[in-house]
């Protein structure tokens, strides 16, 4: 099964669900589903800023496993980080996300 994650809420998702569950499982190649993409809203985008230690691990595993990472463009502009993300991580909105995933669409989209 192929899944895409949308990080839409801000409480404990990046530091806990992503960093302590999803990311270690991806690194150990035992997540149980093929992750094709992750999209980040609001403050969750800070994980994509170059230098973020969780983001660095995520960027590495995404490159190795062909996972699309994308930040919400308006969220990134609002935080003035749009040009400070890890190399190759685009910003965009729904049309960009759907276009980017169209070649390898997920079976399930999971909103966290």
């Amino acid at each position, binding site marked *: 099964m192929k899944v895409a994650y949308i990080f839409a809420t801000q409480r404990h998702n990046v530091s806990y669900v992503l960093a302590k569950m999803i990311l270690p499982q991806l690194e150990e190649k035992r997540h149980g589903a093929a992750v094709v993409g992750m999209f980040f809203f609001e403050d969750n985008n800070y994980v994509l800023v170059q230098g973020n230690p969780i983001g660095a691990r995520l960027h590495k595993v995404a490159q190795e496993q062909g996972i699309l990472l994308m930040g919400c*463009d*308006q969220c990134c*502009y*609002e935080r*003035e980080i*749009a*040009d400070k*993300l890890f190399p190759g991580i*685009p*910003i965009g*909105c729904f*049309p960009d996300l759907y*276009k980017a995933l169209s070649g390898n669409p997920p079976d399930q989209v999971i909103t966290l």
Partner: protein
Amino acid sequence: MAPALELTPMTATCRSECCSAAPRFTVNELFERGFRRRRAAPLPLEGAACADSGGNFAQFSLAVAEGRIGAVNFRCASCATLIAYCELIAETVPGLTTEIARALSAEELISTLPGVPAHKHDRAVLAVAAFRAALASIPIEQGKPDHEGRLHLRHPAA
């Protein structure tokens, strides 16, 4: 012993970026203002709409008098970057002659507005193309500066 605290009365509004009322040229703030402007009614001179392969479009309208741009409005796709670039044009060109406005380039927009990642710079090209299409819609006589007053001053007896 700590020195006595000196209180100075606030005599002017803070003009720092933190709380200044002056508009800033950041993508986010241009987007906020542009989002409202693109809902405004078009001005008398409407240019042709321009589009890119990704489904983005932009269309400018102008008010021009005596060879100078008086006001600029636009309609465009909801892309935040495109709205910001269109708003940057709308805020900076009023008051310019049409000749000077024609020289506006996408490179100038890109350099004026830092913070946009490179893969979104093509939105500046679309914005400038649409703005130039609006300039092309200006009737020739309306696009010329009015020099009549100066002629009268030089030749009052004529």
